Structures are given as structure tokens and as C-alpha cells.
């Protein structure tokens, strides 16, 4: 009987306090992202591109350069990339926690953080590809950030392939955590190696102060929206997976 009570305590729990924040965060994400989208096109000033052969009158202003519409990609590209880093950092944190405690809960956390990371990494790749095509005029270049992101994406995909190839849950969790930790150490090295060896053509936006106030504002709004979106997706997926595990555990208990 005592054993049974102990087992009942071990049911995978879900629905902690962050779940109650989810609806608010969801609304917040929608509001901020829509506002960010509108701001990117209406509020942030256009950026000058190549010089025109002769000045043109647009509205009541003389324009001497091409106004780059493609630069708007940047307002979504950077926040998405930063959120993907955040998700990966969480995945790394939870995999260390798993190896420390061997609690299945942390493995679920790692897996879901990785899923969110994969989503945002792919979004970064798509927006980044659009950027290289329209801003730099080429589809692909082995630039440090592109290379690193490609490697990062492949490692995250490899993480899921590895998980699918193992049946035993404990082994799957351990191997997954080990790979997640190695990958997170590998990616910064990859960035450094590709950055130091050839010259880079990526603008270092934040450090050199290449953004004006209105651009910074727009990025900040989209950033908040994306963080909220990432959080909402994470919590909802976590809740779903944990409830599935809980149902499985209860079923097993009833069978005993």
C-alpha cells in the first residue's frame, strides 16, 4: 500500500503556475507581433541602398538612393535568431539538469526546448536566405553566420534523428542530453573558427551602432513578441506532452 502511494506521487505532473500566464502571453505575442509588423513597414524609416542615376521626387522629398524594402526582413530576422539562441540555451540548461538528476521531466524539457529551437532556427534560415538573396545578391555564401547556422540546424535535426533511433527512454534521454551539451559547446567554436579564418561580410549591427532609434524600437517590439511566442509555444507543447505522459502513467497504474 505504501508503495502504491509512493508511485502515485511519481505521476508526471503538469499545469504549474506558468500555464496561467500562457493566455495573456499569447494575446501579448499577437499584439506585439502585429504592432511590430506594422511598425517595420510604416514607422521605421527606409534604408538607403545603391545610388540612383538621377534624383527622384518621392512625395515631397528628393531621393537620391534606392530605398531598400528588403531591409525590412531584418526586423524579423534578428529577433527570431535571438529567440532560437534562447531556446537552445534552455535546452542546454535542461540537459545538464537531466544528467545531474536523471529525472525524466528534464528530458521532456530539453526535447521541447529543442523543438522550439528547431522552429526558430528554420525561421532564421528562411529569413536569412531572403536577406542574402535580396541584400547581397546571392543565394548562398559560406559566411561565418550562415555556416554556423547551417551546422546548428543540422545538429538540431541530428538530435531528433538520434532520439528516434533509440527505444529505451533512459538511454534516449541520456544520449540526447549529451549530444545537446556537445552541440552547444560546438556551435560557438564553429562561429569563431569560421569568423576568424576568412573575412566576414555580415554587418555587426549592435556594436557599431548601425541602427537608428526608430529601427531599434521596431526590433525591440518584434523581439518582445517573439519571446512571448516562443514561451507560449513551449508551455503549450510542454503541457501537451506532460499530459500524454500522465495518461500513460495512469493507464499503467490501472493495469497493475
Amino acid at each position: 500500500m505504501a508503495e502504491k502511494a509512493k508511485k502515485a506521487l511519481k505521476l508526471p505532473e503538469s499545469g504549474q503556475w506558468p500555464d496561467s500566464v500562457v493566455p495573456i502571453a499569447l494575446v501579448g505575442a499577437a499584439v506585439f507581433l502585429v504592432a511590430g509588423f506594422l511598425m517595420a513597414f510604416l514607422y521605421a524609416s527606409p534604408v538607403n541602398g545603391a545610388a540612383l542615376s538621377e534624383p527622384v521626387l518621392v512625395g515631397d522629398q528628393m531621393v537620391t538612393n534606392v530605398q531598400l524594402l528588403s531591409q525590412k526582413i531584418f526586423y524579423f530576422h534578428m529577433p527570431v535568431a535571438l529567440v532560437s539562441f534562447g531556446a537552445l540555451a534552455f535546452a542546454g540548461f535542461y540537459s545538464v539538469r537531466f544528467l545531474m538528476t536523471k529525472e525524466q521531466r528534464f528530458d521532456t524539457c530539453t526535447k521541447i526546448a529543442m523543438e522550439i529551437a528547431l522552429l526558430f532556427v528554420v525561421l532564421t534560415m528562411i529569413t536569412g536566405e531572403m536577406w542574402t538573396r535580396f541584400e547581397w545578391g546571392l543565394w548562398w555564401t559560406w559566411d561565418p553566420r550562415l555556416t554556423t547556422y547551417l551546422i546548428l540546424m543540422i545538429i538540431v535535426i541530428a538530435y531528433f534523428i538520434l532520439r528516434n533511433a533509440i527505444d529505451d527512454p533512459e538511454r534516449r534521454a541520456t544520449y540526447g542530453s549529451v549530444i545537446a551539451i556537445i552541440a552547444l559547446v560546438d556551435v560557438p567554436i564553429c562561429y569563431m573558427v569560421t569568423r576568424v579564418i576568412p573575412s566576414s561580410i555580415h554587418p555587426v549591427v549592435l556594436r557599431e551602432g548601425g541602427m537608428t532609434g526608430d529601427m531599434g524600437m521596431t526590433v525591440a517590439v518584434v523581439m518582445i513578441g517573439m519571446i512571448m511566442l516562443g514561451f507560449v509555444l513551449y508551455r503549450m507543447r510542454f503541457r501537451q506532452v506532460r499530459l500524454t505522459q500522465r495518461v500513460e502513467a495512469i493507464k499503467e497504474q490501472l493495469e497493475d
Partner: protein
Amino acid sequence: MSVTVKRPSTFTQYKTLLVKDLRQEFRTKEMLTSMGIYALLVLIVYGAALAQTAQVFDILQMSGGLLWALIVFTSLLGLNRSFTAEKEQGCLEGILLVPLDRSVVFLAKATSNLLFLLVVEIITIPLFYFFFLTSTTPSDSFWLIVVPLVVGTIGVAGIGTLLSTITINTRGKDVMLAVLFIPLIFPLLYACVSATTAAIVGGDLFMETFTMSLALAAGYDVIMVLLSWVLYDFVISV
């Protein structure tokens, strides 16, 4: 009458495990022959792949990359094999029953993989030179490619041993090792190709690129081997 058994030192354990691997290889010659033949076959493929261009373009600039592509694919084959025998013949269970520090197992296995890879490289690099570089004049610093080769192979053996221990227990392990190994080895590969090419091509600025790339490769080695060493306990104990 009491019998006292002295506990073997860590170094003795390491030496025993290493000698076991070497002896097994010496008797079967399984890994060295398969890796050597595979490397030779890749060289033949290169011969066909470069046949139409050899007269026109500068092979020296590409040779660093070609050499490292050869090493990566050959080491994939070897690493896949390195735990198969242990698993099939139940040797791994035996080792795990012995009360020894798990990281010793890692170090011994990594060392034996490193030695096999180096032997294969000693055979294939003269062959590579023979097939592709005799018609050209590499720079005087050509012999310096030994340094990136050793540094790179240490990293390949270190991380490869950890990954092959992981993939030995998965479905479709051959593909799985490649899927994990190639992206994780990428920074090392990039730095080593840069250092090797710098040594082969030479020129005024070669020393700068060479030392920079080597420093990065060595940094990768130190970090990754230490990390693999720490994490190995988790991997092999499950």
C-alpha cells in the same frame, strides 16, 4: 596464508585496455585493411573526379581540402568499426564489469583509434602525393602538414570515440554516426583544411594563417576531448 592482490594503477588499466585493442587489431588486421583500402578507393575516385581538370587548375589549392575529405570519410569507417567488435563479442560488458574509472575506457579507446588513424594517414598521404602532387611543386613548408594532421586526428579520435559509443546502441548506426559526427567535427575540419592548405601552398602570409588555424584547431581539441571525457561516464553507463 593470505593472498594480497594489489589494485592495479590507473595507468596499468589504461595500458591493458590499449594493448588489448592493439593486439586484437594486430591479429585480425580488420580495421587497418578496411580503412586503408577505403582510402585508396577514395583516391581513385578523386582521380576520376579530377581527370578532366588536372591540366588547367591549381591542384595545390584544393589538395588540403581533398586530403581532409579523405580523412573524414576514412575515419568514419574506422570509428564505426571500433565498437562493433566489442559489442558483438560481449567484450564491452566484460570491461564494464571491471571496477575501473569509465574515463580510462574512453582514453584507451581514443588512443587506439588515434593510432589506427595515424597509421592509415602514414600510408595514404604518400599515396596522395604520388597520385596528385608529383606534377606540381608544393612549397618548402610542405612537411608542416604533419602538424595539422596530428592535431586534427586527435580531435577526430576524441569526439569520434564518444559518438561511436553513442551510435553503437542505436538503430541504423552507420548513418547515425555520420549524421552526428560531420556537423560536430565541422569547426575542426575548417581550421585543419585552412592550416593544411596554408602549409602546402606557402607564400608570404602562410605562417599567419597556419598558426591561427592551428591555434583554433588545438583549442577545439582541448575543449572537445575534455568534454567527451567528462560525458563519457554517462554514455557508457546507461
